[in-house]
């Protein structure tokens, strides 16, 4: 029936289909729908920047206005991917700039961004509105100055956890006086800022809803800024420090009064440095908070932390440090009945001390907060009994990431592996999409995952499993698996090669310190031309054509529609390239030359 409607009608209907997955599905129905959909698509999500080329993006979606790109694999967050691996945004920005794409929004995660890229970006798209950089690196405040100076209609500049070299320039001062359109500004990952320029900027941007400051913004400056922006919904404080008795401080009194005017704040973060006795100033905000992020606030703990939590009855998302301890988590459980997401980070991840939260805290949370659907929990220990209780209390997990500090640690009470505990979680949370395992685990837990985790999209395995069977349970069972990352587990070529077609249904597979060999990787690369199989060979352990039986330290493979990238550094071997490029010695030629 839909074929009898003019294209405009189809397009109008498609306007209501916003998620990129749904639009992908729409485009598969028939050629007509594919055509209408591709001309009308405005938002494109590319989960792996090496899966497709910018030219093909531009050819298929000439109307794209908002682009999301992701670069390095997830384990790059934990230093497992060497510097210079790749993930450069430059070719994308150049290609988009040359085309007639009217780019308005760019969101990048784990990519290498240069000042030049930012400069080209800022000058090439007149309607550019939003730049979000998450865990990126390679640029300086010069690049930020270009964005500030040239993007006249900028609404959003959101810098999350990037590594930015700070030059002596005043990038914030580069926002022209005519810039009055800002809605969201986050520079918390920087160390310095020009306070005067910041205050003027805030004063002339009345639509500012989200503002995340850095440690250079003092309490005094915060008060003046909040005076200008009582409409804020999302606030990240900087340095919440007072060096005198708050009761004697005019600044503090003014701050308290100013905060009372900020009736819209629902999300609060920051407190990179804090004088706990100043916290009462934010108590009025706590009553309405739905998101509280104290994961960088090492200065708030003990009774002050508890006092704060007790006021946050409407909290839905909480990010904290483990200095909250099990007792503090019990307070969360009795106060935050609407809690959906909890993340507990270690305050001292690499020290010799213990992590202060255990299974007790988690069980308390699960019994007090049945709406919990997203968990990240770094703890000292975990028991099967606790996980089984958590699974029973909270059957709605979408994300469940548990990290026990000691790798492969068993249940301390029974000395058993944690198979049954995690098994209970996957069996009860039928909508689970993301899972990270830790503790002592055998193939059994992987059997449970393959059997029950039907919606699982991303799985992280570390120091787990006993044999290839384990990995196969997952590959065979999890039909919706998109990303699998494995480290230090005994899976080898047999598991890798059993079902090579599976990897084309997934975005990527990472295996490090496992038992896959060079020969196994080569076999896979030869069988599957539409996969890029990369060997990251930092220590020069393997000579390419020798020793097929040698184990590969790090392998990263991903599906792709383009020829293997040409920006890979020397220590990254893309097997497709090495096996298929004419002119490159084939392995038997090499062996005969070197033997």
């Amino acid at each position: 029936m839909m074929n009898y409607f003019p294209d405009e009608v189809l397009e109008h209907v498609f306007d209501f289909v916003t998620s990129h997955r749904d639009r992908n599905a729409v485009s598969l129905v028939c050629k007509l729908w594919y055509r209408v959909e591709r001309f009308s698509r405005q938002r494109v999500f590319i989960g792996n920047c090496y899966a497709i080329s910018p030219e093909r993006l531009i050819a298929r979606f000439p109307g794209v206005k908002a682009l999301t790109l992701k670069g390095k694999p997830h384990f790059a967050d934990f230093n497992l991917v060497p510097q210079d691996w790749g993930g450069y945004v430059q070719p994308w920005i150049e290609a988009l700039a040359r085309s007639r794409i009217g780019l308005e929004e760019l969101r990048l995660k784990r990519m290498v961004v240069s000042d030049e890229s930012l400069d080209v970006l800022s000058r090439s798209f007149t309607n550019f509105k939003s730049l979000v950089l998450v865990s990126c690196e390679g640029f300086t405040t010069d690049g930020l100055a270009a964005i500030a100076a040239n993007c006249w209609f900028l609404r959003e500049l959101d810098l999350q956890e990037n590594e930015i070299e700070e030059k002596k320039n005043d990038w914030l001062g580069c926002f022209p006086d005519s810039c009055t359109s800002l809605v969201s500004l986050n520079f918390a990952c920087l160390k310095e800022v020009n306070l005067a320029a910041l205050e003027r900027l805030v004063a002339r941007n009345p639509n500012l809803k989200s503002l995340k400051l850095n440690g250079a913004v003092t309490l005094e400056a915060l008060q003046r800024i909040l005076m200008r922006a009582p409409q804020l919904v999302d606030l990240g404080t900087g340095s919440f420090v007072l060096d005198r008795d708050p009761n004697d401080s005019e600044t503090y009194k003014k701050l308290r009064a100013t905060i009372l005017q900020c009736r819209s704040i629902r999300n609060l973060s920051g407190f990179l440095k804090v004088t706990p006795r100043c916290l009462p100033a934010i108590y009025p905000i706590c009553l309405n908070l739905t998101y509280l992020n104290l994961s960088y606030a090492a200065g708030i703990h003990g009774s002050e932390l508890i006092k704060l939590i007790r006021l946050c009855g409407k909290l839905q998302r909480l990010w904290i440090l483990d200095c909250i301890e099990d007792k503090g988590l019990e307070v969360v459980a009795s106060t935050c009945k609407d809690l959906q997401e909890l993340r507990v980070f270690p305050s001292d991840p690499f020290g010799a001390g213990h992590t202060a939260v255990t299974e007790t805290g988690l069980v308390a949370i699960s019994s007090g907060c049945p709406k919990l659907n997203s968990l990240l929990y770094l703890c000292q220990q975990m028991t099967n009994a606790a996980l089984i209780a958590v699974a029973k209390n909270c059957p709605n997990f979408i994300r469940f990431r548990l990290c026990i500090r000691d790798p492969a640690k068993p249940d301390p009470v029974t000395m058993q592996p944690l198979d049954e505990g995690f098994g209970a979680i996957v069996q009860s949370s039928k909508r689970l999409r993301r899972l990270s395992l830790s503790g002592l685990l055998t193939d059994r837990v992987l059997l449970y995952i393959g059997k029950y985790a039907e919606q699982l999209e991303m799985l992280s395995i570390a120091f787990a499993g006993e044999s290839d069977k384990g990995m196969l349970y997952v590959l065979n069972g999890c039909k919706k698996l998109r990303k699998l990352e494995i480290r230090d587990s005994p899976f080898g070529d047999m598991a890798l090669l059993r079902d090579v077609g599976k990897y084309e249904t997934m975005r990527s597979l990472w295996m490090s310190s496992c038992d896959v060999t060079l020969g196994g990787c080569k076999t896979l690369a030869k069988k599957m031309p539409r996969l890029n199989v990369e060997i990251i060979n930092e220590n020069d352990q393997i000579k390419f054509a020798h020793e097929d039986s040698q184990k590969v330290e790090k392998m990263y493979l991903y599906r792709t529609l383009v020829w293997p990238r040409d920006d890979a550094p020397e220590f990254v071997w893309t097997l497709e390239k090495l096996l298929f490029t004419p002119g490159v010695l084939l392995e038997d030629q090499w062996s005969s030359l070197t033997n």
Partner: protein
Amino acid sequence: MSPENRNYMPESDVVGLNLKETELTLGMPGETRVTTDTGVKLGTKRGFSETIDLNLGRSNVKCHDKVCDDELENDVLGGATKSLTEKAQLVGWPPVRASRKNVMKSCKFIKVAVDGAPYLRKVDLEMYNSYQQLLSALEDMFSCLTIRNYLNEKKLMDPANGVEYVATYEDRDGDWMLVGDVPWKMFVESCKRVRLMKSSEAIGLAPRTPQKCSSTA
């Protein structure tokens, strides 16, 4: 993983003390401690490497890090503690982003003791930029005290009874020093704890200043 591979030398043989008798093991009261021929003690708590080896059907423990391989050859008692420090060398574990690693480093909490007070307090030296700020904070904390400046020396006094306190600190070498001599940053680096010492005890340490109030306590 057979125990024969381990080099096990009972300590009691080495030093001639009968350490075996006083050794702690897990066992019912009255049970004799049994040591097998290979030197494995029965009834003792298993270390990390032993638990990995439990009947899980593995022919070899999967572990590429050299660290883990070494662990398997440790003797039971040493295994658990050694594994903790060596684990610190595991790359990328625990899975924590670089930006989160230094969260605690930005704090330097030290204990502050005041002579005569029933309990100690803790302050974060990173919170302050000068001695004056620190003393103000101490003044707030121990609310009975006020700062008194004599000849630019920093002292604290309890106006209720006129007892004067001198701020001292223990440095990295374990010596007790007068607060205020070195630049602030250097002080923060080297200070381990602070003690507000009664002036009357600080003979030889505190500068001589005229006592305006005599102690009535």
